[in-house]
């Protein structure tokens, strides 16, 4: 879309010393990396938002107002994100969204809380589309934060539900990245497997340094010698790609249960060795049947953006729920919208979703899928795509977790 124009207008507004600008459009600030090593994932998310906004606008906009996505580059840096947040607030933007990097999300949640507390007549709402640290809907929860992606614990609930039905899996190896997210995944896996299939033995529980390991063959070797039947990993980015590559090179044939096996660039890097072995737990993949309109939308999206795969279905869910909340509340004031969103139920083509009132976490059905060669829609032009496993659909209620959230609600 006219990103240059968006960027240019954002820049012009930022460079003036004027006070806040009055906006007649409904602006949503997209704060994610748009330069640096993670620019591609930031760009991917942005395109989904822009398309979703266009869809909403074609249908009369939200609350009668035109939706505009204003991108801000945070270079995947928590501090820079705070600077961009200020810029957004100064431009009169009251809704922000972010997803890449729980560390950034953590900084934003804090900053939004503080800002809303110190400036109660200029509140800001944070719509999180991908940062999955469970803490954000537990100890770190905030009234002003809503999460539209299942958190790491919920994804593990779904995965272990599927795992519970697999009789032939007796030994599981857990491998993750050594930081808060990887640790959360490992802890959740251990806890939930103990609960649902105490007979499964966890033959290895290992954390490796984040984005440092170039050669995963020692890990693969350890996995093999422990007589593993399945591997659970939350790895993403190069750590995911190299792990699967190494496993393929070593001729390993066991399933890998992942969160981000279908993430940007992963399938391309993994190649044929991943077919039949790599499974992912997501709320969506392209070969799910959502009806004709949905398929048409996916095809149109891919045409619009030069073959970029339709991946973040939850972004569209987010936009639809936002629209509904504005309509219910009859205003675009973040406090009213938040109250409307809290506890909202919404129908999507894949089932009903619900935004929990107690911790602002969206509950939606999750799907375990496997990479296959025989698919209608492939990923990144590789000829491989994901197919839902036979018992792969996990209902939203099954993924719900206990929460320790006690959020401060504005009076």
């Amino acid at each position, binding site marked *: 879309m006219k990103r240059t124009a968006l960027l240019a207008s954002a820049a012009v507004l930022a460079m003036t010393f004027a006070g806040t600008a009055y906006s007649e459009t409904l602006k949503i600030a997209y704060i994610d990396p748009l330069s640096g*090593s993670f*620019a*591609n994932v930031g*760009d991917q998310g942005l395109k989904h938002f822009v398309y979703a906004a266009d869809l909403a606008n074609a249908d009369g906009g939200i609350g009668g107002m035109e939706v505009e996505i204003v991108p801000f580059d945070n270079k995947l840096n928590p501090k820079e994100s705070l600077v961009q947040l200020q810029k957004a607030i100064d431009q009169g933007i009251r809704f922000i969204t972010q997803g890449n990097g729980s560390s950034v999300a953590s900084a934003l949640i804090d900053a939004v809380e503080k800002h809303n507390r110190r400036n109660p007549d200029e509140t800001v709402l944070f719509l999180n589309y991908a940062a999955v640290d469970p803490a954000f809907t537990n100890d770190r929860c905030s009234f002003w934060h809503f999460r539209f992606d299942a958190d790491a614990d919920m994804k593990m609930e779904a995965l272990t539900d599927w795992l519970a039905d697999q009789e032939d899996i007796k030994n599981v190896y857990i491998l993750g990245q*050594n930081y808060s997210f990887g640790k959360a995944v490992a802890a959740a896996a251990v806890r939930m497997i103990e609960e649902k299939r105490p007979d499964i033995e966890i033959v290895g529980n*290992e*954390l*490796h*340094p984040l*984005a*440092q*390991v*170039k*050669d995963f*063959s*020692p*890990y*693969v*070797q*350890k996995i*093999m*010698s422990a007589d593993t039947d399945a591997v659970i990993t939350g790895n993403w980015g*190069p750590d995911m*790609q*190299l792990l699967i590559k190494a496993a393929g*090179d*070593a*001729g*390993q044939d066991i399933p890998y249960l992942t969160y981000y096996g279908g993430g*940007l*660039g992963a399938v*391309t*890097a993994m*190649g044929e060795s991943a077919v039949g072995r790599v499974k992912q737990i997501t709320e969506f993949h392209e070969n799910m049947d959502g009806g004709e309109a949905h398929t048409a939308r996916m095809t149109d999206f891919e045409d619009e953006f030069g073959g970029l795969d339709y991946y973040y279905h939850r972004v569209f869910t987010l936009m639809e729920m936002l629209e509904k909340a504005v309509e219910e509340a009859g205003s675009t004031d973040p406090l009213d919208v938040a109250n409307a969103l809290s506890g909202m139920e919404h129908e999507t083509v894949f089932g009903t979703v619900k935004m929990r009132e107690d911790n602002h976490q969206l509950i939606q059905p999750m799907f375990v899928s496997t990479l296959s060669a025989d698919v209608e829609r492939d990923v990144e032009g590789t000829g491989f795509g994901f197919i839902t496993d036979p018992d792969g659909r996990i209902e939203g209620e099954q993924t719900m977790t206990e929460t320790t959230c006690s959020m401060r609600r504005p009076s």
Partner: protein
Amino acid sequence: METVVFSLLNGTIYGLLLFMLSSGLTLIFSMMGVLNFAHASFYMIGAYFAYTIGATTGFWVALFLAPILVAALGAIVERYGLRKVHTNGHVAELLFTFGLAYLIEEIVKIIWGKFAVPYRVPDALDFPLFQLYGTDYPAYRIFMLVVSVTMLAVLFVLLKKTRTGLIIQAALTHPHMVGHLGHNVPQIFMLVFGIGCGLAGLAGVIGGNYLVTEPGMAFNIGPIVFVVVVIGGMGSLMGAFIASILLGLTQTFAVAIDTTFAQIFGFIGLGPTTELGALSISAIAPMLPFILLVLILMVRPRGLLGEREF
């Protein structure tokens, strides 16, 4: 036992890859006093060139052609960039290569995009060569071993047996004297810089499909290569070789060791639930090269086999 054998094999191969990278850097550093921060960037360029050339002509032509192109590029950079900065001193040269590293990464992103590119092992080499304790060992790794050893041998012959090699050796330890003797030292510098970058490019050609080829690959492997060169010492290729193998083995073995600090230091009362105690050797594996670096610089600044101080 299996872990040991695997780690030995993998560690040696990784170490040889490091050596391919660091040999060029040692040559450049020893002769010109320039610590080429952009050295890993030439490694990256080699991988990308191989990917692009290989897409049309196949892997084998790329294996030959890409390093030559990278060497030419290096020579141009030296002639028109580095030489100009040389008059401003070592710090300026270092900073020039520092800026160059940033620049190359951005240019690579513009030309080839921000994503990883599917630079794959050629089909002819993509098969398991033998079985080791039940897991396949890919033939490509052995190929890497062969290429590295061949390169080492060729470099050795070049340096010890040819006239140019003798001059280069002399310039490695006594650059000023060589100039006094009437040899065209700037031209030798250009040649050596080119060869050094060509070696890095070759490392990229065979390493790029073993690891992932993406714009961040230079920044990932860069610091380790410096550590190798500094540990190995000034003016010593053998030192660089030993240091590379040492580091390759250290990193590979460390990753495989799960012993926690509590298990090692339990006798002085370090509990297994404390943060320090729960740390395993594999968790600190990325820190080990830098610990080694700092130790060597404090204890023996000329490196393992360095012939002169910096």
